[in-house]
């Protein structure tokens, strides 16, 4: 058993942390928060592409680094810590994973090099409004004669994406479809969201040329398989975010005085920080198991992904809200960075579906396993 990153992966993670500390302090996220029309920080995105991170899970033959999913998990943790305002998750955890999972060799050869080079922002367009569609239910987005029509909302990074992967229905069968977001028949409109550091859009398709990714009829199954992968990677962002909150809270608790001593001397604050730590470590361990299952690609993944997602969502939410609480009035200001994490924790909690669904899925998995 070896339940830790390798030395190489650790080295890479250290480098990523250093890089993001220098290139992505909170002013970068605030730049987008204060001007949501920007959608993301294009300079940071270019520099990240320059580091090669977009190509970590992509094979060398397609211009990637071919370092595998566990290395990607290490980077994801650092992206979460930094609250980076870039479409990394949409492009790498969703779009790239879907292309790796379901793309033909031609599609992979056409798309992956552009992703690795930083020339292609990808987005994942599944949701059609509030609530959750049951797998297999009828979809509003339809494909006929290679053209897609309908509306997807919300689409994370939808207004800044170059390519979209859309869950749509063709002749009664659901499939995943590739659409050129810059081409005809696609209109994206940014919507106000709790976390403007990740663009959210309504995307309207009106006879947009669409190319199927994977087999007809496999749409829902593929979507779930992509979600499983993304859930693990998002869990690492949540672990990084939790860490960042705990660090901020600890720093404040050690320096803020009330009643003649540092507030961190009060058990109420100590226990709060200890709880953040405990939840963070449970999330980290579940995320590690998820990373292993993701790399293995075996039958363990769905259960491991659900556990990582549930623990990560809980830890980050708790840490983000209690970090504000630890900062008192200061924590409630725009100027303090606490709310960047409060917003991001909610974004990460919802972007791949709320934990309540994953809990249902986790227990169903357990039931199946016990029945077997």
């Amino acid at each position: 058993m070896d339940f830790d990153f390798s030395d190489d992966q650790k080295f890479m993670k250290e480098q990523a942390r250093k890089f993001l500390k220098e290139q992505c302090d909170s002013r970068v996220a605030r730049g987008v928060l204060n001007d949501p029309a920007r959608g993301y920080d294009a300079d940071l995105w270019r520099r990240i592409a320059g580091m090669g991170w977009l190509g970590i899970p992509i094979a060398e033959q397609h211009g990637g680094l071919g370092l595998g999913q566990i290395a990607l998990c290490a980077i994801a943790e650092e992206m979460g810590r930094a609250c980076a305002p870039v479409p990394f998750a949409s492009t790498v955890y969703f779009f790239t994973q879907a292309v790796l999972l379901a793309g033909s060799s031609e599609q992979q050869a056409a798309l992956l090099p552009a992703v690795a080079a930083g020339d292609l922002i990808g987005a994942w367009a599944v949701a059609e409004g509030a609530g959750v569609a049951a797998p297999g239910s009828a979809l509003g987005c339809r494909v006929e004669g290679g053209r897609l029509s309908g509306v997807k909302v919300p689409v994370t990074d939808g207004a800044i994406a170059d390519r979209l992967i859309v869950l749509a229905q063709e002749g009664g069968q659901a499939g995943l479809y590739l659409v050129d977001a810059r081409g005809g028949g696609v209109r994206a409109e940014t919507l106000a969201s709790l976390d403007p550091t990740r663009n959210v859009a309504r995307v309207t398709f009106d006879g947009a040329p669409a190319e199927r990714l994977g087999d007809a009829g496999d749409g829902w199954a593929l979507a779930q398989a992509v979600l499983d992968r993304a859930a693990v990677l998002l869990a690492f962002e949540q672990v990084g975010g939790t860490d960042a909150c705990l660090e901020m809270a600890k720093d404040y608790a050690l320096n803020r005085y009330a009643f003649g001593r540092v507030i961190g001397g009060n058990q109420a604050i100590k226990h709060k920080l200890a709880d953040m730590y405990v939840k963070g470590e449970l999330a980290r361990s579940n995320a590690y198991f998820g990373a292993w299952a993701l790399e293995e690609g075996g039958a363990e993944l769905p259960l491991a992904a659900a556990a990582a997602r549930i623990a990560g969502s809980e830890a980050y939410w708790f840490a983000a809200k209690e970090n504000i609480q630890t900062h008192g009035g200061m924590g409630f200001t725009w100027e303090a960075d606490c709310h960047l994490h409060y917003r991001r924790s909610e974004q990460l909690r919802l972007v791949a579906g709320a934990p309540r669904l994953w809990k249902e899925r986790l227990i169903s998995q357990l039931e199946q396993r016990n029945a077997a």
Partner: protein
Amino acid sequence: MDFKDSPEEAAFRAEARAFLAANARPKGDGAPLAVRSDPATLEAAKAWQRKKAEAGFACITWPKELGGRGGTPIQQVIYAQEEEQFETPPNVFAIGLGMCVPTVMAFADTATKQRFVAPAVRGDEIWCQLFSEPAAGSDVAGLRTRAVRDGDDWVVNGQKVWTSGAHFSDFGILLTRTNPDVPKHKGLTMFWVDMKAPGVEARPIHQMSGDREFNEVYFTDVRIPDSQRLGEVGAGWQVALVTLMNERLAVGTGYGPTPEELMALARALDLGGRPAMADQAFREKLADWYVAAQGLKFTKFRTLTALSRGQTPGPEASIGKIVSANQMQEMSAMALDLADQYGILNDPAEAPFGGLFHRNFMFAPGLRIAGGTDEILRNIIAERVLGLPGDVRVDKDIAFKDLPTGR
């Protein structure tokens, strides 16, 4: 014990209901909540308060000659129950009428009371509470704003912070340090202050929710006549305790989304082929929240009953805000969860109830801090209600100027 109205109470309720029906819109017609401090909202709030005062529904328990109704605490509850069902402008008077003016009533001379109480009741003048400072929030007795005697005046220098509504307030109650050479609780003095006086400057602070409702307030050589002192020199802490006791009565319940609003959302949302309302986990949560909200409501009734029997409500009233602020956070988070991915959208044109749940989600963290944090309220319950020993205090017997401080 009787939860039903007596004949007199029923008559009062009918009167209140008739007044509201004639003057306000029933709740739930989906009008977006206004941001509190824009001029139009402020005017609407003032107009509504005046209407209430003229009809005898503002400050119901206060004496008639001071602009109140001379009514009972139970009437106050009845009116609040009725008003809850109507859409009314945001209450910008809560801090003034709930905390500041009662302090003025308890400590000022008759002339001062006659000058200030009725205009506050009518909403013509708004009051704010100038207690917290950058280095003194939970530990408000650690404040540093200095008042130095100069003839018949005091000269005040220092900074307050998080002062809700200071930018649109006319007056404030101001807690100052008049003697730094004695232990911190003993060197404080309270004044009322004109917010338009030379040297007073309010600068709105941008909140994480995006609003700008609270302020930094700077005092630079502000001259305050000794006649504006509330209570004795050096007795400011005792005066502040009266303010804070009133705060416990003023704040407490009635925040955030109601179980009914959450149910309306859940009925409309589909969760994988069935309405969210059918989800067992959601139903259980909802039951818990409803029971807690009822518990708070009836606890408040008990407090008011004690009040109407001439007893002083104790620190047990502190449970209100701990429960309601946390519940506001949990319930709004649940609303976002139910909408799933779509829950991230707070666009008023997209989000359910025009973004009500999102506003609550972003304001709840502030409510858990304002007016005594969760942690401080728990300390109060543990120490003052249950009698558990207090923390070992390093700051009780040292001169204020010698206390250790941080950033």
